[in-house]
């Protein structure tokens, strides 16, 4: 027959009591922090998964910031190009009027005034800035790309002898790089200014032949600006889709992260209650078993 000794009972009681308190402590910690684990070794697999998700979420935020900045940049570009197209259309109207042979010198002078005004305006637009950066000077964002000149040579309009055709890039996803700028060279600003100077010169010297072709020239320029604008639009779309995608991903990942490391409060409270009962019963049983001895019954 196996013997039971007083110390066995006490040790057992203590062991159960400690175990119960440990679980109570664990549930309390989970409920007060709202997290399933406070050390990696509590749940190594889940903890690392949670760490990975946190990194993904943080970098998604950066990618969203990058994409949104790209969108802003492209918005400024788009506005500028819109302005360019509108101005070129006005110039086209002037070209139509100028092509009409029965103009008085006074009329021509008025049109020339208008053309020069609009040319200056276009130069201003070509020097548009986003923040401190010139948007049409490629990677040389610090330098003003264009200056006014009374020349029909496109190179004379380049403020620094050349415009940069460098691409400004933003990472909008692991390894996904998008250009956010359109360079002045792609739009052909210098050529437009030279053409406009030619237009103005033709008006001044009544060069009917040039005036006749001017409408076609301007149409060509409008076409190429519209082409650039379409490109800007499609990049804007792409970036907007990227932002949308990351934003919905963020919700999904945040949800997974919560499932990975967050505590199911209802479940944990149930477990806590359960453990609390076990704890109380352990205490009550201990109190009954430990106290009485034979001595209480001996006279």
């Amino acid at each position: 027959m196996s013997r039971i000794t007083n110390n066995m009972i006490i040790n057992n009681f203590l062991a159960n009591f400690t175990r119960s308190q440990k679980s109570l402590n664990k549930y309390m910690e989970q409920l007060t922090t709202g997290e399933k684990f406070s050390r990696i070794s509590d749940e190594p697999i889940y903890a690392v998964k949670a760490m990975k998700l946190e990194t993904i979420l943080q970098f998604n935020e950066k990618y969203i910031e990058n994409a949104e900045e790209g969108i802003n940049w492209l918005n400024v570009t788009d506005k500028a190009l819109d302005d360019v197209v509108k101005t070129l259309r006005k110039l086209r109207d002037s070209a139509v009027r100028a092509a009409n042979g029965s103009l008085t010198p006074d009329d021509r002078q008025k049109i020339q005034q208008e053309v020069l005004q609009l040319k200056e305006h276009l130069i201003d637009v070509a020097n548009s800035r986003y923040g401190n950066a010139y948007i049409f000077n490629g990677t040389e964002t610090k330098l003003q790309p264009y200056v006014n000149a009374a020349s029909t040579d496109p190179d004379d309009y380049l403020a620094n002898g050349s415009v940069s055709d460098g691409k400004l890039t933003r990472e909008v996803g692991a390894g996904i790089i998008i250009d956010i700028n359109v360079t002045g060279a792609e739009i052909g600003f210098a050529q437009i200014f030279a053409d406009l100077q030619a237009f103005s010169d033709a008006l001044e010297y009544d060069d009917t032949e040039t005036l006749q072709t001017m409408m076609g020239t301007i149409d060509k320029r409008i076409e190429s600006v519209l082409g650039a604008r379409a490109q800007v639009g499609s990049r804007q779309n792409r970036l907007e889709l990227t932002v949308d995608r990351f934003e919905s991903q963020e919700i999904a990942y945040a949800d997974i992260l919560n499932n990975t490391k967050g505590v199911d409060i209802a479940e944990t409270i149930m477990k806590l209650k359960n453990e609390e009962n076990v704890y109380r019963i352990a205490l009550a049983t201990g109190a009954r078993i430990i106290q009485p001895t034979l001595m209480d019954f001996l006279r």
Partner: protein
Amino acid sequence: MSTFGGIELGKRALQTQQKSLNITGHNIANANNEKYSRQRAVQSATDPYTLASLYNPAGAGQVGTGVYIKSIMRMRDQFIDTRIRYENQGYGEWSVRKENLRQIESIYNELDNGGVKNNLDRFFQSFHDLVRDAESSNSVRESVIQNAITLTTQLNHIDRSLMEFRDHLGSEIEYKVAEVNDLAKRIAALNKQIKIIESDPTKKANDLADERDALIDELAKIVDIQVRFDSYNQANISLNGLGIVNGITANELEYSLIAEDRTSIDGVLYENVFDKYVFSVNGNQARIDSGEIYGLIAVREDIVDQKMNKLDLLARTLIEEVNAVHRRGYGKKDLPGPGNDYEEGGVGRDFFLGTDASNIKVNDDPVNGIIGFPENIAAAPRTEDKNNDGENDLIGDQSIALEIAQLRDKSITALGSTSFNDFWQTQVSELGIEISRAEAMETNQNILLESLKEKRQEVSGVNLDEEMTEMIKFQHGYSAAARVISVIDQMLDTLINGMI
């Protein structure tokens, strides 16, 4: 039988009951003594007295002469003791492992916001910010520097903490060795006392044996010992074949530190040379395969060393990769001009200095460094100064900064074709898994040990109710013996005084 023989018998009975009661008292007194094994008085009848008779002069009926205590027994199961010692080794090893791995975990402190992972993330993120904020003031560049300093300081700190922890484990090992030697000496001394007492075969050195068993249990927790008891009841203890207690002599367990070139842990080459503990007894090399010392050695010489190497690998790769890109770039004020060949291929400026986790730092050169010179962060791939304002016109192009930011996702061969972040997370999760395993092993060993200890209690433990019953039993025995004497006394009274 002589006239007074009965009184003598009664006296012996009284003495025997009294002694037995004393033993019960000893048991009760030691009821809460963990080391104590309960004792039992073995009562035995004294040699009988042969009564000669008329018809059978030689072999008449034998008359009993009472009782005496033949021996005092210790209730102990040697088999359970052996198993407890064995399981104690495992328990010692795993609990030490768990405790110390926890320490490494708290050095890493990875779930906290300040973990290496978070600082790596922040470091790379700040380069993204730099890409977006090329033209503005130096504030973004300053934040890149601050994030880099936080990262390097943390790597330095972890490296130093691991080194200190390694030293601490070393002194723990030395302390445990001293404990082994102390225990061995005490066991040898007890062997001597027990041998002297038990040379009288009727005597058992029960309380001393309890003391010695407790010491052997303690010793078994520290190193993997084997125990043999010889015919003099001396405990001879050996450590994988080398005697550390031989009868009444104890042999010192000695340690020495040898430098070991552990440069190729996991096939990665390092200049780190770690030292290693070697043990010997009487000049013979001793093997330790289990117990607390083994646990400490495993943490110190496998895990900490490996973690330090991996940390160095991370730091070194970070230095190499970031510098390789950064050298190709130009800062805000790196302009082409006389006396430099800045035309192509970058300034060649290092972002980080150092070779491993212990000395990695952001370039703090007082002339051409990064700290204090935010404009020196070489984020642009080219340089020129057309407008002669003393600044690089091309800083709008931050593709070098972007390349550095992209290093985050780059799979790097030196790191086993993983990214920085994944590499570090693998380190952390390996440690976490190692700790859970040690925890599970410790729990298992503890359950096993507790159940064995309960078995031991079943045999050796004192049950107070049982002792109370015994006490009443001996009390009654004593009263009855006293009664016998008093009856004999009355008889003698009749004989002496009533016969006149």
